[in-house]
Protein backbone atom coordinates (compact mmCIF):
# COMPACT_ATOMS: atom_id res chain seq x y z
CA UNK A 1 0.00 0.00 0.00
CA UNK A 2 1.31 3.44 -0.85
CA UNK A 3 2.31 5.69 2.00
CA UNK A 4 -0.24 8.38 1.15
CA UNK A 5 -2.99 5.76 1.17
CA UNK A 6 -1.85 4.52 4.58
CA UNK A 7 -1.89 8.05 5.96
CA UNK A 8 -5.37 8.62 4.50
CA UNK A 9 -6.68 5.40 6.03
CA UNK A 10 -5.31 6.38 9.40
CA UNK A 11 -6.89 9.83 9.21
CA UNK A 12 -10.27 8.37 8.17
CA UNK A 13 -10.07 5.96 11.05
CA UNK A 14 -9.96 9.01 13.27
CA UNK A 15 -6.60 7.99 14.58
CA UNK A 16 -5.54 10.48 17.23
CA UNK A 17 -2.17 8.83 17.51
CA UNK A 18 -1.55 8.55 13.81
CA UNK A 19 2.12 8.32 14.58
CA UNK A 20 1.65 4.86 16.01
CA UNK A 21 -0.42 3.61 13.12
CA UNK A 22 1.46 4.95 10.16
CA UNK A 23 4.81 6.13 11.16
CA UNK A 24 5.80 3.89 14.01
CA UNK A 25 9.49 4.11 14.71
CA UNK A 26 9.86 0.57 13.43
CA UNK A 27 8.36 1.44 10.04
CA UNK A 28 10.64 4.40 9.70
CA UNK A 29 13.64 2.28 10.61
CA UNK A 30 12.73 -0.36 8.04
CA UNK A 31 12.48 2.35 5.43
CA UNK A 32 15.82 3.80 6.38
CA UNK A 33 17.37 0.33 6.26
CA UNK A 34 15.92 -0.26 2.81
CA UNK A 35 17.40 3.00 1.63
CA UNK A 36 20.76 2.10 3.09
CA UNK A 37 20.67 -1.34 1.41
CA UNK A 38 19.74 0.20 -1.90
CA UNK A 39 22.57 2.68 -1.58
CA UNK A 40 25.06 -0.11 -0.85
CA UNK A 41 23.67 -1.97 -3.86
CA UNK A 42 24.13 1.11 -5.99
CA UNK A 43 27.67 1.62 -4.78
CA UNK A 44 28.55 -1.96 -5.72
CA UNK A 45 26.87 -1.69 -9.09
CA UNK A 46 28.81 1.48 -9.84
CA UNK A 47 32.05 -0.16 -8.79
CA UNK A 48 31.34 -3.18 -11.00
CA UNK A 49 30.43 -0.85 -13.82
CA UNK A 50 33.75 0.98 -13.76
CA UNK A 51 35.61 -2.38 -13.66
CA UNK A 52 33.74 -3.74 -16.62
CA UNK A 53 34.08 -0.50 -18.55
CA UNK A 54 37.86 -0.64 -18.04
CA UNK A 55 37.92 -4.21 -19.34
CA UNK A 56 35.78 -3.25 -22.28
CA UNK A 57 38.24 -0.49 -23.15
CA UNK A 58 41.14 -2.93 -22.96
CA UNK A 59 39.34 -5.39 -25.26
CA UNK A 60 38.54 -2.58 -27.65
CA UNK A 61 42.22 -1.55 -27.78
CA UNK A 62 43.17 -5.19 -28.40
CA UNK A 63 40.73 -5.41 -31.28
CA UNK A 64 42.17 -2.26 -32.86
CA UNK A 65 45.74 -3.59 -32.53
CA UNK A 66 44.79 -6.88 -34.18
CA UNK A 67 42.95 -5.07 -36.99
CA UNK A 68 46.06 -2.95 -37.54
CA UNK A 69 48.29 -6.01 -37.67
CA UNK A 70 46.02 -7.76 -40.15
CA UNK A 71 46.05 -4.72 -42.44
CA UNK A 72 49.82 -4.55 -42.15
CA UNK A 73 50.25 -8.22 -43.06
CA UNK A 74 47.87 -7.92 -45.98
CA UNK A 75 50.16 -5.26 -47.31
CA UNK A 76 53.10 -7.64 -46.87
CA UNK A 77 51.27 -10.35 -48.86
CA UNK A 78 50.79 -7.90 -51.71
CA UNK A 79 54.47 -6.99 -51.58
CA UNK A 80 55.51 -10.68 -51.59
CA UNK A 81 53.22 -11.38 -54.58
CA UNK A 82 54.67 -8.36 -56.38
CA UNK A 83 58.09 -9.89 -55.90
CA UNK A 84 56.76 -13.21 -57.23
CA UNK A 85 57.49 -15.01 -53.95
CA UNK A 86 54.38 -17.20 -53.75
CA UNK A 87 55.67 -19.26 -50.78
CA UNK A 88 56.38 -16.26 -48.61
CA UNK A 89 52.95 -14.84 -49.47
CA UNK A 90 51.34 -18.07 -48.34
CA UNK A 91 53.30 -18.01 -45.09
CA UNK A 92 52.18 -14.44 -44.37
CA UNK A 93 48.60 -15.37 -45.26
CA UNK A 94 48.74 -18.14 -42.67
CA UNK A 95 49.84 -15.58 -40.08
CA UNK A 96 46.87 -13.42 -41.13
CA UNK A 97 44.41 -16.27 -40.65
CA UNK A 98 45.89 -16.79 -37.16
CA UNK A 99 45.42 -13.10 -36.42
CA UNK A 100 41.85 -13.26 -37.68
CA UNK A 101 41.05 -16.06 -35.22
CA UNK A 102 42.49 -13.91 -32.41
CA UNK A 103 40.49 -10.94 -33.64
CA UNK A 104 37.21 -12.89 -33.61
CA UNK A 105 37.93 -14.04 -30.06
CA UNK A 106 38.84 -10.55 -28.86
CA UNK A 107 35.77 -9.12 -30.60
CA UNK A 108 33.58 -11.58 -28.74
CA UNK A 109 35.19 -10.66 -25.40
CA UNK A 110 34.61 -6.99 -26.20
CA UNK A 111 30.95 -7.58 -27.08
CA UNK A 112 30.36 -9.50 -23.87
CA UNK A 113 31.80 -6.65 -21.83
CA UNK A 114 29.74 -4.11 -23.79
CA UNK A 115 26.54 -6.04 -23.00
CA UNK A 116 27.53 -6.22 -19.39
CA UNK A 117 28.09 -2.45 -19.29
CA UNK A 118 24.66 -1.81 -20.75
CA UNK A 119 23.03 -4.11 -18.19
CA UNK A 120 24.86 -2.52 -15.28
CA UNK A 121 23.98 0.98 -16.47
CA UNK A 122 20.30 0.02 -16.49
CA UNK A 123 20.68 -1.48 -13.02
CA UNK A 124 22.34 1.68 -11.69
CA UNK A 125 19.56 3.86 -13.09
CA UNK A 126 16.90 1.57 -11.66
CA UNK A 127 18.54 1.56 -8.24
CA UNK A 128 18.89 5.32 -8.28
CA UNK A 129 15.18 5.68 -9.06
CA UNK A 130 14.36 3.20 -6.33
CA UNK A 131 16.36 5.17 -3.78
CA UNK A 132 14.71 8.43 -4.83
CA UNK A 133 11.33 6.77 -4.43
CA UNK A 134 12.17 5.43 -0.97
CA UNK A 135 13.48 8.81 0.07
CA UNK A 136 10.30 10.51 -1.14
CA UNK A 137 8.16 8.07 0.85
CA UNK A 138 10.33 8.41 3.91
CA UNK A 139 10.05 12.18 3.67
CA UNK A 140 6.23 11.88 3.59
CA UNK A 141 6.26 9.69 6.66
CA UNK A 142 8.65 11.94 8.51
CA UNK A 143 6.72 15.06 7.57
CA UNK A 144 3.48 13.52 8.85
CA UNK A 145 5.25 12.59 12.04
CA UNK A 146 6.81 16.02 12.42
CA UNK A 147 3.56 17.89 11.78
CA UNK A 148 1.77 15.74 14.34
CA UNK A 149 4.41 16.36 16.95
CA UNK A 150 4.49 20.05 16.09
CA UNK A 151 0.74 20.44 16.38
CA UNK A 152 0.77 18.54 19.67
CA UNK A 153 3.44 20.93 20.96
CA UNK A 154 1.44 23.95 19.79
CA UNK A 155 -1.76 22.71 21.44
CA UNK A 156 0.11 21.94 24.68
CA UNK A 157 1.62 25.39 24.61
CA UNK A 158 -1.77 27.03 24.20
CA UNK A 159 -3.28 25.12 27.10
CA UNK A 160 -0.27 25.57 29.40
CA UNK A 161 -0.04 29.31 28.80
CA UNK A 162 -3.78 29.56 29.49
CA UNK A 163 -4.11 31.73 26.43
CA UNK A 164 -7.44 31.00 24.87
CA UNK A 165 -7.26 30.62 21.14
CA UNK A 166 -9.46 33.31 19.69
CA UNK A 167 -12.07 32.38 17.17
CA UNK A 168 -11.14 33.27 13.61
CA UNK A 169 -13.79 35.98 13.49
CA UNK A 170 -12.57 37.60 16.70
CA UNK A 171 -9.00 37.49 15.44
CA UNK A 172 -10.05 39.04 12.18
CA UNK A 173 -12.04 41.77 13.97
CA UNK A 174 -9.13 42.63 16.20
CA UNK A 175 -6.68 42.75 13.32
CA UNK A 176 -9.03 44.84 11.23
CA UNK A 177 -9.68 47.21 14.14
CA UNK A 178 -5.96 47.59 14.69
CA UNK A 179 -5.45 48.30 11.01
CA UNK A 180 -8.25 50.89 11.15
CA UNK A 181 -6.68 52.44 14.28
CA UNK A 182 -3.33 52.68 12.57
CA UNK A 183 -4.98 54.16 9.52
CA UNK A 184 -6.89 56.71 11.64
CA UNK A 185 -3.76 57.63 13.51
CA UNK A 186 -1.95 58.16 10.27
CA UNK A 187 -4.81 60.26 8.91
CA UNK A 188 -4.93 62.34 12.08
CA UNK A 189 -1.20 62.91 11.93
CA UNK A 190 -1.53 64.00 8.35
CA UNK A 191 -4.33 66.39 9.19
CA UNK A 192 -2.33 67.90 12.01
CA UNK A 193 0.60 68.28 9.71
CA UNK A 194 -1.45 70.06 7.09
CA UNK A 195 -3.04 72.34 9.71
CA UNK A 196 0.39 73.29 10.92
CA UNK A 197 1.56 74.09 7.47
CA UNK A 198 -1.61 76.18 6.85
CA UNK A 199 -0.96 78.15 10.00
CA UNK A 200 2.66 78.83 9.20
CA UNK A 201 1.63 79.96 5.74
CA UNK A 202 -0.93 82.44 7.09
CA UNK A 203 1.63 83.70 9.60
CA UNK A 204 4.07 84.35 6.81
CA UNK A 205 1.37 86.10 4.77
CA UNK A 206 0.44 88.30 7.66
CA UNK A 207 4.04 89.25 8.24
CA UNK A 208 4.27 90.22 4.61
CA UNK A 209 1.05 92.27 4.86
CA UNK A 210 -0.84 89.97 2.46
CA UNK A 211 -4.39 88.72 2.98
CA UNK A 212 -6.89 89.79 5.60
CA UNK A 213 -5.65 92.76 7.59
CA UNK A 214 -6.15 92.93 11.29
CA UNK A 215 -8.25 95.82 12.47
CA UNK A 216 -6.58 98.52 14.44
CA UNK A 217 -7.72 101.79 16.00
CA UNK A 218 -6.97 103.91 12.99
CA UNK A 219 -8.94 101.69 10.63
CA UNK A 220 -11.93 101.76 13.02
CA UNK A 221 -11.79 105.56 13.17
CA UNK A 222 -11.59 105.74 9.39
CA UNK A 223 -14.66 103.54 9.07
CA UNK A 224 -16.76 105.65 11.50
CA UNK A 225 -15.62 108.86 9.82
CA UNK A 226 -16.75 107.49 6.51
CA UNK A 227 -20.22 106.63 7.92
CA UNK A 228 -20.64 110.18 9.33
CA UNK A 229 -20.05 112.01 6.12
Amino acid at each position, binding site marked *: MSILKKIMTAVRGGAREMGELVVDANGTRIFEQEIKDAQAHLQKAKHDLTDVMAKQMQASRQVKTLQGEIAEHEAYVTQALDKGDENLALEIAEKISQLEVDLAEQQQVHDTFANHVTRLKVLVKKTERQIKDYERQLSMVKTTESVQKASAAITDNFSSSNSKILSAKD*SLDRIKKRQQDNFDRLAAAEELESENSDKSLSDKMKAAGIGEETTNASSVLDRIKAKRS
Partner: protein
Amino acid sequence: MNTRDLALRISDFSSFEGYQFDCQPIPGDTEVLQITLTDYEELPAFVSVTDTQILCITYLFTQDEVRSGSKAEMMEEMLELNIPMPLSSFAKLGDRYVIFGALAINSSIEDICHEIITLTENAVESIDALEEFLI
Protein backbone atom coordinates in the same frame (compact mmCIF):
# COMPACT_ATOMS: atom_id res chain seq x y z
CA MET B 1 19.35 24.46 9.75
CA ASN B 2 17.31 23.87 12.89
CA THR B 3 14.66 26.04 14.50
CA ARG B 4 17.15 27.65 16.87
CA ASP B 5 19.39 28.81 14.04
CA LEU B 6 16.32 30.07 12.31
CA ALA B 7 15.15 32.03 15.37
CA LEU B 8 18.55 33.68 15.72
CA ARG B 9 18.74 34.61 12.08
CA ILE B 10 15.22 35.99 11.96
CA SER B 11 15.88 38.03 15.10
CA ASP B 12 18.80 39.63 13.24
CA PHE B 13 16.32 41.32 10.97
CA SER B 14 14.97 44.33 12.84
CA SER B 15 12.39 44.55 10.13
CA PHE B 16 11.72 42.93 6.77
CA GLU B 17 9.40 44.17 4.04
CA GLY B 18 8.03 46.66 6.58
CA TYR B 19 7.17 44.06 9.24
CA GLN B 20 8.73 43.23 12.58
CA PHE B 21 9.02 39.63 13.74
CA ASP B 22 8.63 38.13 17.14
CA CYS B 23 10.11 34.63 17.50
CA GLN B 24 9.32 32.26 20.30
CA PRO B 25 10.42 28.66 20.50
CA ILE B 26 7.76 26.19 21.62
CA PRO B 27 9.08 23.20 23.54
CA GLY B 28 8.00 19.68 22.61
CA ASP B 29 9.01 16.51 20.77
CA THR B 30 9.62 18.49 17.64
CA GLU B 31 10.95 21.99 17.95
CA VAL B 32 8.51 24.55 16.70
CA LEU B 33 9.01 28.24 16.31
CA GLN B 34 6.11 30.60 16.84
CA ILE B 35 6.58 33.68 14.70
CA THR B 36 4.24 36.64 14.90
CA LEU B 37 4.25 39.82 12.87
CA THR B 38 3.54 43.10 14.59
CA ASP B 39 -0.14 43.98 14.26
CA TYR B 40 -0.97 40.33 13.47
CA GLU B 41 -0.43 38.81 16.91
CA GLU B 42 -3.68 36.84 16.70
CA LEU B 43 -2.46 34.79 13.75
CA PRO B 44 0.97 33.40 14.56
CA ALA B 45 2.88 31.29 12.05
CA PHE B 46 4.31 28.03 13.37
CA VAL B 47 7.53 26.95 11.73
CA SER B 48 9.10 23.51 11.98
CA VAL B 49 12.08 22.06 10.18
CA THR B 50 12.18 18.46 8.89
CA ASP B 51 14.93 16.60 7.03
CA THR B 52 13.68 17.78 3.69
CA GLN B 53 11.59 20.90 4.17
CA ILE B 54 10.66 23.90 6.25
CA LEU B 55 6.98 23.95 7.08
CA CYS B 56 5.14 27.14 7.99
CA ILE B 57 1.60 26.71 9.31
CA THR B 58 -1.01 29.22 10.46
CA TYR B 59 -4.19 28.08 12.17
CA LEU B 60 -7.33 29.59 10.70
CA PHE B 61 -10.28 28.15 12.63
CA THR B 62 -11.62 24.96 14.18
CA GLN B 63 -14.30 22.87 12.55
CA ASP B 64 -16.65 23.95 15.36
CA GLU B 65 -16.47 27.48 14.02
CA VAL B 66 -17.84 26.41 10.65
CA ARG B 67 -21.55 27.21 10.25
CA SER B 68 -23.44 23.94 10.30
CA GLY B 69 -24.40 22.70 6.86
CA SER B 70 -21.96 24.92 5.00
CA LYS B 71 -18.87 22.77 5.35
CA ALA B 72 -19.00 21.24 1.87
CA GLU B 73 -19.54 24.59 0.21
CA MET B 74 -16.73 26.14 2.20
CA MET B 75 -14.33 23.37 1.24
CA GLU B 76 -15.23 23.80 -2.43
CA GLU B 77 -14.46 27.47 -2.02
CA MET B 78 -11.12 26.65 -0.40
CA LEU B 79 -10.15 24.37 -3.28
CA GLU B 80 -10.99 27.14 -5.72
CA LEU B 81 -8.92 29.66 -3.75
CA ASN B 82 -5.91 27.38 -3.33
CA ILE B 83 -4.23 28.21 -6.62
CA PRO B 84 -4.86 31.97 -6.69
CA MET B 85 -3.52 32.31 -3.15
CA PRO B 86 0.21 33.03 -3.49
CA LEU B 87 2.68 30.57 -1.87
CA SER B 88 0.18 29.12 0.63
CA SER B 89 -2.36 26.31 0.52
CA PHE B 90 -5.32 25.31 2.66
CA ALA B 91 -5.08 22.17 4.73
CA LYS B 92 -6.55 20.50 7.78
CA LEU B 93 -4.78 19.29 10.90
CA GLY B 94 -7.01 17.30 13.19
CA ASP B 95 -10.03 19.52 13.87
CA ARG B 96 -8.36 22.70 12.64
CA TYR B 97 -8.31 24.29 9.24
CA VAL B 98 -4.93 25.77 8.47
CA ILE B 99 -2.97 27.36 5.71
CA PHE B 100 0.60 26.37 5.17
CA GLY B 101 3.60 26.88 2.97
CA ALA B 102 6.52 24.49 2.50
CA LEU B 103 10.02 25.60 1.62
CA ALA B 104 13.10 23.66 0.55
CA ILE B 105 15.48 23.02 3.42
CA ASN B 106 18.18 25.21 1.86
CA SER B 107 15.97 28.29 1.39
CA SER B 108 17.53 31.65 2.22
CA ILE B 109 16.50 33.53 5.33
CA GLU B 110 14.92 36.19 3.10
CA ASP B 111 12.79 33.52 1.42
CA ILE B 112 11.64 32.24 4.80
CA CYS B 113 10.75 35.73 6.04
CA HIS B 114 8.92 36.46 2.83
CA GLU B 115 7.04 33.17 3.18
CA ILE B 116 5.95 33.99 6.75
CA ILE B 117 4.74 37.46 5.79
CA THR B 118 2.82 36.10 2.81
CA LEU B 119 1.37 33.32 4.96
CA THR B 120 0.12 35.77 7.59
CA GLU B 121 -1.36 38.10 5.01
CA ASN B 122 -3.02 35.16 3.30
CA ALA B 123 -4.44 34.00 6.63
CA VAL B 124 -6.15 37.38 7.19
CA GLU B 125 -7.38 37.48 3.60
CA SER B 126 -8.74 33.97 3.68
CA ILE B 127 -10.61 34.36 6.98
CA ASP B 128 -12.08 37.53 5.50
CA ALA B 129 -13.06 35.64 2.34
CA LEU B 130 -14.54 32.66 4.22
CA GLU B 131 -16.25 34.74 6.92
CA GLU B 132 -19.72 33.94 5.62
CA PHE B 133 -19.16 30.27 6.48
CA LEU B 134 -18.07 30.96 10.05
CA ILE B 135 -20.04 31.37 13.27
